[in-house]
Structure formats: C-alpha cells, structure tokens
C-alpha cells in the first residue's frame, strides 16, 4: 500500500536495527553457549549444576522480564546502559542459555568412542574438546542453531518495548503518525506487513534448518539434536 511505500526508509532503518541486533545476539549467544555447553559436559557435578541453574533460570523467566530487568536494573546498579545494548545483553543471555543446551546435546551426540580414542592417544582434555569433540559437535548442531537464529530474529521485536527503533517499532511509529496527524488507523495493514516480513525471514531460516537437518542426518553417526521450537521461547 502507498503508506508502506511512503515510509519505506523508516522501515528499512528498523529492519537494519533488527538484523544488527540479531547478529550481535547470535555472536554473543554462540560465545556463551559454546562455553557453557562445554562446561556442562565436564565430569564435575558442581559445574554442571551451576550451568543447569543458569540455563533453567534464563529459560523460565519470560524474555520480556529479562530484558526489562537489564534495562531498568542497570542504571540502579550504577551502570548506564542504552536501550540497544540492554536488549542485546538480555537476548544474548537468553540465547546463550538455549545455545548451551544445543551445544551440550551436540557434544553428547558424538559417539563416546571418539573421546575415548583421543584420550587413549594421549591428548589432553582441552585438546580432546578442541580438536575432536567440538568440530563434530558444531557440525551436528548447525540445523538446531539455525532454528535458534530464527527465534533470535523473532525476539528482537521485544526491543520495541524499551524504545529501540527496530522493525516492529518502525511499524508502530508509522501508525502513530497516521493516527494522530491524519486521523486514519492503518494498524491492520502495517502490523500485517510486519508479520509478513518476519514470516519471510524466519521461514527461510527454518527451511534452511530443516534442509541442513536432512542432509546431516543422512550421514550422521550420533543422535539428532532437537531444534529449539518457538514454543520454548
């Protein structure tokens, strides 16, 4: 519709912010996820418990509450945090928790013989992880990880609630302008448009995730790793 075309620059600004936020979150989630995923497979029970505690906490608290906690809590703790970094941190902590589960599943899916053989050959534990387990695990988790990326893209929409001008907020601004200045209400079209764009991006990622899953299962040696479903959001 003409309204969408007129406001295309604003939508593109929003989309850019969404993608940047998703990229930052993906990078940070990977770092956190791989670290915690590895820790979760160590023999120490205490470490595994701590990791499980972190993962459970971040997955059980609504993501909206996590982000608001960081956004409102940071200034109170003396750390000034602008909206975009606050959302990035909140999403990364959550994404890292989910990533940890995926990576853990990936490492555990590598047949035990691999690690045993590597240790028998004299490799230190960190070498076993770096050279044998992780390369195989990370290849195996790629489909699940792509699924997680789709969820991360979806969850960036929460940034709208704390003032980040991402894609959903851009839609809201367009509606606001039309409502107060022109008296028309294009909510149906604009939010419908926003839905379709998210659908286009995320269904592509989901599709890629399923294709990867099929390709990898063809030659897989270990268990398939469950793709995080949006229901676990």
């Amino acid at each position, binding site marked *: 519709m003409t309204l969408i075309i007129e406001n295309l620059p604003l939508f593109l600004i929003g989309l850019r912010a969404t993608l940047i936020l998703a990229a930052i979150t993906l990078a940070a989630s990977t770092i956190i996820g791989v670290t915690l995923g590895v820790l979760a497979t160590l023999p120490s029970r205490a470490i595994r418990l701590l990791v499980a505690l972190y993962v*459970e*906490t971040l997955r*059980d*608290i*609504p993501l*909206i*509450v996590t982000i*608001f*906690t960081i956004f*409102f*809590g940071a200034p*109170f*703790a003396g750390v000034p945090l602008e909206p975009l970094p606050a959302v990035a941190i909140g999403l990364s902590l959550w994404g890292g928790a989910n990533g940890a589960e995926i990576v853990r599943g990936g490492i555990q899916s590598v047949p035990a013989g691999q690690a045993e053989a590597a240790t028998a050959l004299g490799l230190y534990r960190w070498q076993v992880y770096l050279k044998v387990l992780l390369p195989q695990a990370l290849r195996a988790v790629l489909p699940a990880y792509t699924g997680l990326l*789709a969820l991360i893209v*979806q*969850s960036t*929409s*929460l940034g*709208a*609630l704390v003032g980040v001008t991402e894609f*959903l907020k851009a839609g*809201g601004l367009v*509606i606001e302008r039309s409502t107060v200045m022109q008296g028309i*209400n*294009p*909510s*149906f*079209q*604009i*939010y*419908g448009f*926003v*839905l379709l764009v*998210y*659908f286009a991006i*995320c*269904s592509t990622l*989901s599709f890629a995730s399923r294709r990867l899953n099929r390709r990898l299962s063809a030659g897989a040696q270990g268990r398939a790793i469950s793709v995080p*479903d*949006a*229901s*676990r*959001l």
Partner: protein
Amino acid sequence: MEFDLDYLMRQIPALRAGLALTVQASALAILISIAIGLVGASVRTLRLPGLAHLFVAYVELIRNTPLLVQLFFIFFGLPAVGLTLSLFWSGVLALSLWAGAFQTENIRGGLAAVSPGLSEAARAVGLTRAQYLRLIGLPLAVRTGLPAMLNTCVSLIKNSAYLSAIGVQELTGVAFDRIASDFRAFEMLAVLLVGYLSVVLSLSFAVRGIEYRLQAPFRR
C-alpha cells in the same frame, strides 16, 4: 541500593490481582489451544481438503512470527476489519492461537507415533476414520504427546507476560505499571523474577515427573 520492603507490602494486593489475571488468562488459553490442537491434528491426519492446508499455513505463520507482533495485530489491527475484542480477550486469543499451533504439532506427532496396525484394525472392524480418531487415535496421541503438550502449556503461562505490552494488568503488567509511576524497579523486578521462576520451575518439575511416570510401562 535500598530495598523498600514496606513499599513492596503495599503493592501486594495489586500484584495478587495481577497474578489472578495471569492464571485466568492462561487457563482459558490452555483450554482453547488444546481444543485447536485436537481439531488441527485430526484435520491434518484425515487430510481434509482445504482445511488441512489452512492448518499448515496457520502453524507455519505462528511459528515464524514473533508472539508480540501477533498480539499487536490482534489487539490493534483487527478492529479495523470489524473484530474488536476486549483487552483480556485479545490477549487470550493471541495466546490461544500461538499455543494452538504448537499443540497441533504435538498431537499430530503423537498420532503419527500410534502404530498403523491399530488404524488398519479399526477400519477392518468397520469404524469410520472419525470414529477411529475419537475412540482410539486421539486418546493414544494425547498420552504419547502429553509431555510436549504440558511443556507448551508451561511456556504459555510464562509468555502470558507478553500481555503486559498491550496493557493487560496481569502480573508483569502490574509490576511494569508500578515501575513507570514509582520507579522502584528493584522491588518490582525481584517479585517478577521470584514469581515466574517458582511457578515455571515447579511446573517444569511436575511435567518431568509425569513424563517419568508415563514411561513406566516401557521401563523394565
């Protein structure tokens, strides 16, 4: 950072009312979403023309779009085409549609796990496909899919927090409203964190317990 316990105590009535709303909305949405799931799974399995495709599109749409945008679309967008639901019912509808998509997949997965011999036997005995579903297929599917279904219900309760974004005064909404007026973020956020953690954690454990019990006949 001071923690004003007195302030917190004064907010308890409002927070309790918010929690009641959370429970109400979640309960209704759970019931509706399971109903959607049963219908959707049956439609897909029976391969009803047109309707089956509708459910496929519905599930894909829900899974690939953010719940927040779905909520805004229902609350702000639908009135423009004539469907104006109250705040509460907009929220319940959004949660129901969202969870309904996952319940459809959960029950469908359960149905697929039912051994084909059963449906063949049912047909041989003279039952229609609909009767098979009602008497044999769906009950077995629900039993198999129960853990997944319950996990979706727990996620629904957790995600009822999103309703605060359109102003529903459920638990999160009440807390955010207080923060916006009184700026006591520490106290309110502490309540939310403790509240959701305890509810969701205990429910998750309960689900895991049920899952374990259901596996009993298959464990030697």
